[in-house]
């Protein structure tokens, strides 16, 4: 009937002709799908862009500020050590600006340390985020850390101060009057660093300050860049330790030049917050991506289903399945390109977003930071996905329509009391001839429910951590830095005091030389300021409780033995009896590593010349503020600030809410869409049901049964799954921070999910039910 030539021409030109025909008929629907898929799907690479900016903020800042490899402060009475540093093995470069400690006038207990000098440019160069750098000629201009700026020493502040001498420092514990020169600090800028710390003070002066006050400091800060050799750190540490040992100082107790290594010590608080963020963004991208593909798939499925007869015509005309699919790919291409361009635009637009949560505090270059590469990859990827989904849905429709073969017969002919239930359950359990297989819909709904439950649960756990200081052993109304017995005895007798415990802290050495912070507590009244996570508190000298972070790092469980080495070198095996969070005074990392009995501490800890006792005072409800104010007037109190780790996490407390909202909207839209499409696909069955004499109510019930058949398994599977995921995730975050990893189960919110998902699904089906009711049943039966 057809010549070889004719057949050949049709075969090669056919796909283009068919594509044109499909486009003519469907261009509007395809374009709409392209726009929706581009905007929604574009959120996935955009989330990638935000994730990248968030995840790299810290490392980019480390590079931008030329973070030092090692730092310390060397007292002024041992200048030989400072002089040796640049030539020590392992050191490639060093900067040794002079360091001061100043007392803020008008406050007996407010001190600040300060460095000043000419920065070399490639070593320790804090990024300015507000104001300007100190004028090299000005003798009083300084920049301060963001942390200082937030807590009072802000941009524009003018602070009269008195400098401390080295002798003042030596007398720190016994009291002194600041004996150094008086001067004024003028804050002209706010600077950003990945880590401020003991050896990098929150106040940094310029060359003008250094020149004006040369020789009056308490010593020198030392910042070192290691050379490229692999053992540079070890060789430098050895040389430095030896030098310090050769040159004893009068202030060894307070200014023991311990080396800090800001690059190698990952900030656990940063790590935990970053992990929480990235998982959140990943979850967001996953859900949005699945939602976008689902909407696209269902949309294209309608197109493909509409083109079902067309394929039989094409087949009759000699087009292969591949050519027919190629035609669909061609037809989808323009819309796919629209989707890709829009997605690239979304990625570029995401460049206006700062890193999320606390990581914004590490962004070295705030402002617009477009990710051209991600846009260049993400756009085409979405275009390709669009075309792929178009081809897949067409193939799916055609394959399933061609295979009108008998499926497996239902195992039992179980006839139930309610016809709507019988029909609904049969339609719900049936294979995917008319759309997505039910298993896919149930799985998608399960994933959505699990995501929502996990997010809500993690959010509740986060809120609880931030709101209940007890969980990180905080919440004391007053913390006396140097508690003396008369004061303690007086407080114990004070009826306003509910609990009072004295803490002693030091370091314990591990066999490999590592140091662990160790604390011991003596309860003088009430209960100890300890959060018991598991097990019990130590009761014997050879018993010890560990912080959850340390327990996770060392894989320690109750009953295990932790080997320590006493200062005299004798090994001491400590039995782990519990996991606890014990307050730490420097508000960086959360919790001392170890808690021992006072005897246990004496046996293993590095002895300190002047053991300082810290008193944690908890007042009876309502008396806290008054008591704290009273004590602050006469004693040195540690600021009751929230630890950095908790602060970082507190920055994230709004994130789970936002994520939940996004999840609800995206998953909800997807679910509503698939329920509506599903109901539309079943219009014929519902019409038949009506013909058999089903009332509108029965039709509605059938659709409700269908919805419930998706929603109930999704809830039954999704809630436990979500709680499980939250448990794992929260354990990770909490142990990284150093607190107990048990989740707060938001029973109310979960009950709401359990009730709302099936109820919402049933409510959604009223829409198609109303539509069916308006239309005469015969409209859906087509040709009789």
């Amino acid at each position: 009937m057809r010549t070889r030539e004719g057949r050949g021409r049709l075969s090669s030109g056919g796909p283009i002709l068919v594509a044109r025909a499909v486009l003519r008929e469907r261009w509007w629907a395809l374009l709409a799908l392209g726009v929706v898929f581009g905007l929604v799907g574009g959120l996935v690479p955009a989330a990638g862009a935000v994730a990248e900016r968030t995840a790299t903020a810290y490392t980019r800042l480390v590079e931008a500020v030329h973070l030092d490899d090692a730092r310390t402060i060397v007292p002024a009475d041992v200048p030989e050590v400072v002089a040796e540093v640049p030539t020590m093995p392992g050191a490639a470069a060093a900067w040794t600006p002079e360091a001061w400690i100043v007392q803020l006038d008008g406050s007996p207990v407010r001190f600040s340390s300060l460095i000043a000098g000419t920065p070399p440019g490639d070593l320790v160069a804090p990024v300015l985020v507000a104001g300007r750098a100190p004028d090299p000629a000005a003798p009083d201009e300084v920049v301060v850390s963001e942390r200082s700026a937030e807590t009072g020493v802000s941009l524009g502040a003018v602070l009269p101060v008195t400098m401390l001498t080295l002798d003042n420092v030596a007398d720190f514990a016994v009291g002194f009057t600041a004996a150094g020169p008086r001067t004024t600090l003028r804050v002209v800028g706010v600077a950003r660093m990945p880590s401020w710390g003991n050896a990098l003070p929150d106040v940094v002066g310029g060359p003008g300050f250094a020149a004006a006050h040369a020789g009056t400091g308490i010593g020198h800060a030392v910042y070192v860049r290691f050379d490229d050799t692999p053992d540079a750190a070890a060789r430098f540490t050895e040389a430095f330790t030896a030098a310090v040992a050769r040159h004893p100082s009068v202030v060894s107790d307070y200014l023991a030049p311990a080396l800090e290594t800001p690059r190698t010590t990952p900030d656990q608080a940063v790590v935990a917050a970053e992990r929480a963020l990235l998982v959140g963004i990943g979850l967001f991208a996953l859900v949005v991506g699945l939602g976008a593909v689902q909407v696209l798939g269902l949309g294209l499925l309608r197109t493909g289903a509409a083109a079902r007869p067309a394929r039989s015509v094409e087949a009759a005309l000699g087009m292969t399945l591949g050519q027919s699919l190629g035609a669909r790919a061609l037809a989808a291409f323009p819309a796919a390109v629209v989707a890709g361009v829009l997605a690239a635009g979304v990625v570029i637009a995401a460049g206006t977003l700062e890193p999320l949560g606390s990581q914004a505090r590490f962004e070295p270059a705030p402002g617009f930071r477009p990710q051209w590469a991600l846009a260049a990859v993400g756009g085409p990827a979405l275009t390709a996905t669009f075309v792929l989904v178009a081809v897949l849905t067409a193939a799916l429709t055609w394959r399933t329509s061609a295979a009108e073969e008998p499926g497996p017969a239902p195992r039992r002919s179980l006839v139930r009391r309610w016809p709507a239930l019988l029909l609904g359950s049969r339609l719900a359990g049936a294979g995917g001839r008319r759309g997505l297989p039910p298993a896919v819909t149930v799985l998608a709904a399960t994933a959505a429910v699990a995501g929502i439950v996990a997010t809500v649960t993690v959010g509740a756990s986060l809120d609880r951590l931030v709101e209940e200081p007890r969980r990180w052993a905080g919440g004391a109304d007053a913390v006396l830095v140097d508690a003396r017995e008369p004061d303690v005895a007086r407080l114990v007798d004070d009826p306003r005091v509910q609990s009072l415990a004295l803490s002693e802290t030091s370091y314990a050495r591990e066999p490999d030389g590592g140091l662990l912070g160790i604390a011991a507590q003596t309860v003088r009244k009430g209960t100890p300021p300890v959060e018991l996570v598991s097990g019990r508190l130590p009761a014997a000298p050879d018993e010890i409780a560990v912080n959850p972070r340390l327990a996770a790092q060392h894989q320690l469980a109750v009953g295990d033995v932790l080997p320590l080495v006493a200062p005299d070198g004798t090994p001491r095996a400590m039995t782990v009896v519990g996991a606890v969070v014990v307050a730490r005074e420097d508000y960086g990392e959360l919790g001392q590593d170890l808690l021992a009995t006072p005897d246990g501490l004496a046996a293993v800890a590095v002895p300190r010349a002047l053991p300082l006792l810290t008193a944690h005072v908890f007042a009876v409800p309502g008396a806290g503020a008054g008591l704290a104010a009273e004590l602050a007037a006469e004693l040195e109190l540690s600021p009751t600030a929230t630890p950095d780790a908790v602060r970082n996490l507190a920055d994230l407390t709004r994130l789970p809410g936002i994520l939940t909202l996004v999840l609800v909207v995206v998953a909800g839209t997807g679910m509503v869409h698939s329920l509506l499409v599903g109901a539309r696909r079943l219009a014929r069955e519902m019409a038949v049901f009506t013909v058999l004499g089903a009332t509108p109510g029965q039709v509605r019930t059938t659709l409700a049964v269908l919805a419930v058949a998706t929603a109930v398994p999704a809830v039954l599977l999704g809630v436990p799954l979500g709680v499980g995921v939250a448990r794992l995730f929260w354990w990770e975050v909490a142990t990284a921070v150093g607190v107990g990893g048990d989740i707060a189960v938001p029973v109310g919110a979960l009950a709401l999910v359990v009730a709302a998902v099936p109820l919402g699904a049933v409510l959604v089906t009223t829409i198609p039910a109303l539509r069916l009711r308006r239309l005469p049943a015969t409209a859906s039966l087509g040709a009789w």
Partner: protein
Amino acid sequence: MSVRDPALVVRGLRKTYEAGTAPVRALRGVDLTVRAGEFVALMGPSGCGKSTLLHLLAGLDRPDEGTIALDGTRIEDLAPQRLARLRRRSVGLVFQFFHLIEHMSALENVALAALVAGARPQEATARARDLLDQLGLLDKARELPAALSGGQRQRVAIARALANRPTLLLADEPTGALDSDGAAEVLDLFRRLHALGQTILMVTHSREVADGAQRLVRMRDGRILLDGEVTSGSIEVPAELRAASGPWARP
């Protein structure tokens, strides 16, 4: 109900569809009486309103004017709920394209109708089994529709339409999608049902199939054109109808 009561009385039925540009007057005043136990074939050119008439009779759509009495009950003004109940009690429908529920076995398709009609589960299953047995399909009871031939599917559909013991069985081109063997099977079945006293109104395009009926009604342009007994190929118009206001009487 006595044998002499008409199963169906239709008077002055009009239906106009407001579709697209011009309204389509599908029915322009139909009068029809079907006595209990009659087997009526309804013929007429495509688009003359046969299916529309059946829709209205089954209460699936509403007439613009006129009355329909089914089993003595006027249905044109009933609420959807009441219509549905009437349908499940009194009407059975058979379609050209079967319209079986594809995810349910043959037995379940039939039992579903019995259930809707109010049978208890055991009764429904028993009745479905019984009907399939009578229609020679018991061995296919557990098959899904996709596993059946066209004729077998139509027989399942007929069993389903009979599951509620309808007063009136409406069939719209039940043999239209079948080959001649299948058509013969279905027609034979209808004749057997008729012999058992079932009232049947069947639309068909096939003169052969129509010949199997007892009475033939012809429609054209939304009106009844001719009505008479089927007597081996010719139509004998009953005297009462000849006298009545048939459309041909007033051109």
